[in-house]
């Protein structure tokens, strides 16, 4: 019997039919993959499973029994654990407290901190993560926070565990840990749901998969391994996609951007690199390798200890992002929620926030018509799924939020350097393909494009040149010809670690 | 015909004194057959709004105790603009230079004079107890942010000094707010600083201030035989002290008559507006020292 069954589930938000009569089932001891483009309704389904939303129609059955959750607490009590796409942690509490939130052990009515730490330490060790249970979440990197979230779900000892894009902020090492964990949970006979936009992952982990498009279930493939990749993509995107990286070789212009000896408290040594106009430069490394740090220094987002940035031979002021933007350098940050979106502002506002300064009426007043037009253009061009340009951005699916941020920078008229920090995190294949096209288009206009990515095939696929970082240092540089997974990993992994491709 | 409306604006509607004034003004309205409009005006802005409001209600005039006496010019201008008769009560309005405004009739007290009465009351009782003036600490619970508070307490200080209390014996205890707890805390510190005095007299801008000093003294073992405090106002706070089974250091309070102030001013404005009978330019009422002994009788006399 199916341990988890969705029967004709529907969910409507103002202006959006997020789920439209979705039915499928998952068995115990099975990993069911969910795929679908951004905004297809995957997360919404999980939120219904987790008791966060009430469906507008349809039934949810656990082990054949119909369930009506009115709160997240109900779902937890029924043995359902969800790892949400947007991490849900309390920054000021410790790892142990976050993991056991809502279920802290007590002794004589008082919290037994020791027992809590012990329990969590055991679980972390069992998963294979080295983290101090007494550390506050605010002190951890995003990847570490993600691991805490995973640990939290696992510790609920649930029968059904659902992962919503858990690897989007993990790199190889944690991804490996996660995979081992998922496989172990499957062997323990739990029912697992796994959402990801990375097809390799789905092939490695999932037994079956269900594909969504526009809030409808398109198909369930009972045996994942038998489905060809092209078929998955076609089901998902609704069209054929050949080479998703869409690489086109270009003639590179003269030297354009030069970073000389950029230095900060968090970097062990000053860093330099240079690139030509029209070049796409990839940055690869493990989590914490210092790629984001370097780009933030270049952008003026963090205080520099030393060094300078030259663009077309002229020094760029280090006064802050506004100065960088004025010079034509823009950065798409890695942490969308904290650094990217203006959550309660509209899609249009999020797109226009920076570029609007160019087209002011009388140098003072906004041109609302023009701004609206620009927003609509980008919504169409990037296929941003939103009921209107006036929708609050926080109500968009994760991937669509990312596209809006991208639109913000593509709208910059004087764009010279485009820095993208994990630009395809959480983005569907179709949209990835579109973003790659944009990257190449931007480069073709003579701009410099820097792409930080922890997805090795991606950086390899789109870059003209690759810089690899390790522990805050530039450990090597590979031309497109030299660049291979093995070569890149050899430079990225600590000395002595096996440099074998992961998948 | 529409009933005649007379306004009665007071600076501190929550204060019992003004509640009493309003009560007696109501009485006058009933007796004479006009309508009384009562509005609290805690600051200059609200005062202007209230005068506008009275005009909108077609009142014929108003009695006012302004939040600051220097608001006189503003009151006068607003009244003239709206063609309203105005009379001040309690605190006399002055112009920018500090001169009383002649064309606003006034009935009330002088804060400074009331303060002097406090001082004289203290002197009399000290004499009766045979205290040596130069051995007694004088505690002035101060709230100098409020001009009338300063006038009152300085009146008391001046009376004491004139009778021979050394200026060095006067100890200021600035309170942060005008409630009892603030007075308590301020007095407490003053006692700490001046442990050399074994006997104390205390006063402040109102009964609450004096009470705070008394409670603080008790907390440090300075009891009724070594402490004398006189408040101002004759409020329930004072009466509560008088009805305690044993006398406390709260010796008395200078009572002023809310009855006369409330009743007579309301009638005066009414008659001025309806019969053209202008009130006397200035009527000053005196305060009376009320103590445990004479309180019942005095209150009866005043119709409280």
């Amino acid at each position, binding site marked *: 019997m199916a341990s988890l069954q969705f029967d004709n589930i529907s969910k*409507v938000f*103002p*202006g*959006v*039919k997020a789920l*439209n009569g979705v039915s499928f089932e998952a068995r115990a001891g099975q990993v069911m993959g969910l795929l679908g*483009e951004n905004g297809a309704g995957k997360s919404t389904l999980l939120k219904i499973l987790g008791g966060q*939303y*009430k469906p507008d129609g349809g039934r949810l059955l656990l082990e054949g029994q119909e369930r009506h959750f009115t709160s997240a607490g109900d779902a937890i009590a029924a043995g359902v654990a969800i790892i949400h796409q947007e991490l849900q942690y309390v920054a000021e509490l410790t790892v142990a407290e976050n993991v056991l939130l809502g279920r802290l052990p007590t002794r004589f009515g008082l919290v037994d901190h020791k027992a809590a730490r012990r329990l969590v330490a055991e679980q972390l060790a069992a998963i294979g993560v080295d983290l101090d249970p007494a550390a506050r979440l605010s002190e951890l990197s995003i990847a570490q926070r993600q691991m805490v979230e995973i640990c939290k779900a696992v510790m609920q000892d649930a029968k059904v565990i659902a992962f919503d894009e858990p690897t989007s902020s993990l790199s190889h090492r944690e991804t490996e840990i996660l995979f081992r964990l998922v496989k172990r949970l499957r062997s323990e006979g739990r029912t697992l749901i796994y959402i990801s936009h990375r097809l390799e992952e789905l092939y490695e982990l999932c037994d079956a998969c269900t594909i969504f498009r*526009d*809030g409808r279930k398109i198909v369930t493939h009972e045996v994942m391994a038998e489905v060809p990749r092209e078929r998955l993509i076609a089901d998902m995107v609704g069209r054929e996609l050949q080479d998703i990286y869409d690489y086109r070789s270009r003639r590179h212009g003269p030297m354009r951007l030069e970073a000389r000896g950029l230095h900060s408290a968090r970097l062990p040594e000053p860093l330099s690199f240079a690139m030509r106009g029209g070049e796409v430069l990839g940055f690869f490394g493990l989590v914490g390798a210092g790629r984001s740090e370097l780009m933030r220094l270049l952008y003026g987002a963090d205080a520099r200890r030393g060094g300078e940035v030259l663009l077309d031979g002229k020094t760029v002021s280090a006064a*802050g*992002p*506004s100065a*960088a933007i004025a010079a034509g350098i823009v*950065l798409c*940050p890695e942490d969308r929620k*904290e*650094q*990217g*979106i*203006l959550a309660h*502002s509209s899609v249009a*506002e999020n797109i226009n*926030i920076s570029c*609007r*300064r160019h087209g*002011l009426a009388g140098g*003072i*007043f*906004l041109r*609302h018509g023009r701004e609206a037009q620009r927003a609509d253009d980008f919504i*169409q061009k990037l296929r941003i799924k939103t*009921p209107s340009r006036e929708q609050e951005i926080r109500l968009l699916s994760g991937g669509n939020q990312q596209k809006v941020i991208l639109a913000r920078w593509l709208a910059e008229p004087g764009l010279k350097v485009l820095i993208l920090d994990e630009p395809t995190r959480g983005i569907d294949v*179709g949209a990835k393909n579109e973003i790659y096209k944009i990257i190449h288009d931007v480069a073709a206009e003579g701009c410099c494009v820097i792409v930080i990515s922890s997805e090795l095939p991606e950086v390899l696929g789109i870059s003209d040149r690759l810089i690899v970082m390790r522990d805050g240092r530039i450990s090597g540089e590979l031309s497109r010809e030299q660049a291979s997974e093995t070569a890149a990993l050899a430079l990225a992994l600590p000395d002595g670690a096996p440099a074998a491709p992961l998948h | 015909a529409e009933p005649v409306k007379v306004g009665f604006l007071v600076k501190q*509607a929550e204060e019992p004194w003004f*509640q009493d004034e309003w009560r007696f003004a109501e009485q006058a309205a009933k007796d004479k057959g006009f309508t009384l409009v*009562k*509005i609290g005006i805690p600051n*200059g*802005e609200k005062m*202007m*709004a209230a005068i*506008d*409001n009275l*005009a*909108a209600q077609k009142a014929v005039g108003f009695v006012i105790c302004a939040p*600051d006496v*220097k*608001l006189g*010019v*503003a009151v006068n*201008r607003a009244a003239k603009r709206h063609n309203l008769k105005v009379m001040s009560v309690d605190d006399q309005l002055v*112009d*920018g*230079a500090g001169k009383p405004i002649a064309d606003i009739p006034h009935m009330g007290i002088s804060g400074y004079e009331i303060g002097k009465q406090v001082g004289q009351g203290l002197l009399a009782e000290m004499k009766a107890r045979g205290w040596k003036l130069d051995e007694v600490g004088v505690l002035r619970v101060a709230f100098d*942010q*409020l*001009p009338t508070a*300063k006038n009152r307490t300085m009146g008391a200080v001046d009376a004491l000094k004139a009778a021979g209390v050394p200026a060095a014996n006067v100890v200021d205890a600035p309170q942060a707010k005008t409630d009892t707890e603030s007075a308590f805390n301020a007095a407490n510190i003053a006692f700490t600083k001046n442990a050399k005095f074994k006997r104390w007299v205390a006063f402040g801008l109102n009964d609450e201030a004096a009470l705070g000093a008394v409670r603080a003294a008790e907390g440090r073992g300075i009891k009724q035989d070594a402490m004398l405090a006189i408040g101002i106002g004759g409020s329930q706070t004072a009466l509560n002290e008088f009805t305690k089974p044993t006398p406390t250091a709260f010796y008395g309070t200078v009572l002023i008559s809310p009855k006369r102030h409330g009743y007579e001013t309301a009638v005066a404005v009414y008659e001025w507006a309806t019969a053209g009978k202008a009130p006397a330019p200035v009527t000053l009422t005196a305060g009376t020292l009320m103590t445990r002994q004479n309180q019942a009788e005095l209150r009866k006399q005043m119709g409280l």
Partner: protein
Amino acid sequence: MNTTTLAQRPAMTSPARALLKEHSMTLGYALLFAVLAFSVENFFSGANIVGLLLSVAQIGMVACTMMLCLASRDFDLSVGSTIAFAGVLGAMVLERTGSVGLAIGSGLLAGALIGAGNGVLIAYLRVNALIATLATMLMVRGLAFIASKGQAVGIADEGFISFGDTTFLNLPLPIWMTALCFLVFGVLLNHTVFGRNTLAIGGNPEAARLAGVKVEQLRVWIFLLQGVVTALAGLILSARITSGQPNAATGFELDVISACVLGGVSLQGGKARIFGVVIGVLIMGTVENVMNLLNVDAFYQYLVRGLILLAAVLLDQLKTRGERRG
């Protein structure tokens, strides 16, 4: 792939409904006004409406900038003190020099300095806004007392006083000034980069910074503006009451903030509507006005004011019900 036609819209988000929702507060106020006009004697008379508007002139002016301040996720408790100080200073300069221009200039300058001080403390030195402005509130009040020796400073200059009671088209100058403030700050909020960036830094300061907003600078400007407008309100008040009062406008900050919040400005930042603020300010003034017209007892006024505040936000709340999940 094609752009998706998003499922037909449910009835409740039709444009008409949205408009209704957007302006429910305005409609609510209009209704209240109509009811009062019919039921409360003297309410709907020219003199009373002018009085009502005058009574909220100061709050209205300062609410304009407080709106920006709250929208940027800040907070300003020092406005009451600034009103007092600007009034006292203006009156003193006028007394010494006899020059209206100098008096106004020095008052505005003082306001600008106080505001900029707040801004620097909060934006650059990263002091908590509550504490920073509480500190300035105390210090500025202290300065007002010290400068005036605790006494009101009288104003005799007719030119200065006329500032407070000259009328134009039957409305006194302060009302025009307030209307002008609403207009200017409405345009500033909705039609300039300054306003949009203010909302942005309130919504997510880090994201705004990375999007090129000069967050620190902007915050200083917001406080500076607030200081200037507040000082202007203080000067107008001193003209109206023909004296600079060192203890004027105590508790004023709470009134202004309440008016803003009533008007839908979020204390969490990022949300503000000038129209809402106008309504918030009017509600505050109307309640007070009507209670005085109806001769409501002073003690019961507290009760009524509390109830009305609650009723207003509860009504406003009803319409957003269902949007969020419980």
